[in-house]
């Protein structure tokens, strides 16, 4: 009897950056245009498992999802215990590009959600010559309010508090099993890591005076679900209107974690975008 395997493979790669050799775990599947997927705050690349397993995507794209340092299977740098973790826009954007360089990816598409969506704006601003297109999911120019001390407070169960705080960001129409799976990922983050990511998400990421500096040379799609209250459709649309050439796509019956909470609904919106990027089809949206 032959065991059932997924077409996804996982590997470790060493990514040099800032004097550290980061041991980074990534998963990949498919052939074609590199599509680098960025996970949300406080969790890891398992969020992208449905897209990694989707032949409609992997037949044209080499889908790659990696765990940021301190997340999932990517261990923290030596000496992490001596500093409070706070993710910054500079480190995050430079690290994404360092990962792409390490894998020698040629002009990849970068797709990220939440903090992975917000960083797409910084990549558009600073690395446009190295990028083919950007898909910023649940992203906007300013998303304040989530840098919350309770998420690492020793009197509060960190796993439960982090996971339950984000459960409500998902749509009630999303399948229970996938919402609980996303909850599970969030229950597993290292202590203080979700909050440290949220330093970028809610504090260091203030793009309000930078929107107009993006040239528009790289296609930028901003996709947001109607049940997202951290980054509402209105926040996304207002950002898109300020960025030259940006297209906003509002997704019905989905929330802050489209790729993991409801891959079927998300796919309806994502496929036209992926087809446009590779030169077929006529535009984004379902």
């Amino acid at each position: 009897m032959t065991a059932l395997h997924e077409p996804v493979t996982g590997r470790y790669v060493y990514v040099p950056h800032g004097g550290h050799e980061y041991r980074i775990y990534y998963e990949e599947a498919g052939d074609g245009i590199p599509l680098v997927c960025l996970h949300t705050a406080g969790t890891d690349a398992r969020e992208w498992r449905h897209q990694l397993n989707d032949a409609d995507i992997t037949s044209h794209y080499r889908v790659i999802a990696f765990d940021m340092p301190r997340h999932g299977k990517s261990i923290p740098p030596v000496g992490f215990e001596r500093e409070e973790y706070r993710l910054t826009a500079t480190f995050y954007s430079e690290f994404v590009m360092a990962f792409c360089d390490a894998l020698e990816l040629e002009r990849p598409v970068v797709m990220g959600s939440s903090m992975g969506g917000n960083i797409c704006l910084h990549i558009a601003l600073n690395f446009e010559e190295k990028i083919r297109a950007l898909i910023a999911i649940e992203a906007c120019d300013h998303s304040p309010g989530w840098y919350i001390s309770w998420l690492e407070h020793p009197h509060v169960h960190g796993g439960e508090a982090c996971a339950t705080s984000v459960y409500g960001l998902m749509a009630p129409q999303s399948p229970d099993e996938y919402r609980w799976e996303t909850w599970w990922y969030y229950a597993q983050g290292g202590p203080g890591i979700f909050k440290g990511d949220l330093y970028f998400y809610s504090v260091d990421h203030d793009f309000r005076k930078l929107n107009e500096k993006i040239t528009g040379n790289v296609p930028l799609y901003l996709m947001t679900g109607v049940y997202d209250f951290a980054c509402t459709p209105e926040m996304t649309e207002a950002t898109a209107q300020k960025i030259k050439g940006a297209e906003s796509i509002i997704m019905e019956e989905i929330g802050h974690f489209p790729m993991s909470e409801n891959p079927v609904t998300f796919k309806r919106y994502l496929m036209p975008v992926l087809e446009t990027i590779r030169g077929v089809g006529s535009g984004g949206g379902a």
Partner: protein
Amino acid sequence: MAALDHPLLERLRDAMPNDPEMQIVGKFMRCDVLLSSGDKRYLLRFDHGRLTEIVEDPHPALAWNFALKAGPGTWERFLQDPPPPEFHDVWAAAWLGHLTLEGDIKVFMQNHFAFWRTLKLLRIQAQATSGAAA
């Protein structure tokens, strides 16, 4: 449309001990919560996954840990299935100004998982009733 009222809270009280999920997540639940819907106020005492007391229009001297205060319209939307965006979750409604969360937020966070299940049960009870009425 279901409303937040005393009969609904009594059904919640009866449902909690029979809910398998609450048996798991409510083991350490301990909090006193004030819910208000317009000028109606209810003090709910929770202990080990059970709603042990419902005090309608509680005396001002009675203490509570945290409070959820909203108008009847917010509760009606919150209790729908599926609830509309912005009213589907306590954080969402509080974040976007439809509901006020007050009091000791540490106690709220300590009981967040169990209280989240409690509110889910509240919605289930509200829907069971509105379905029966229809």
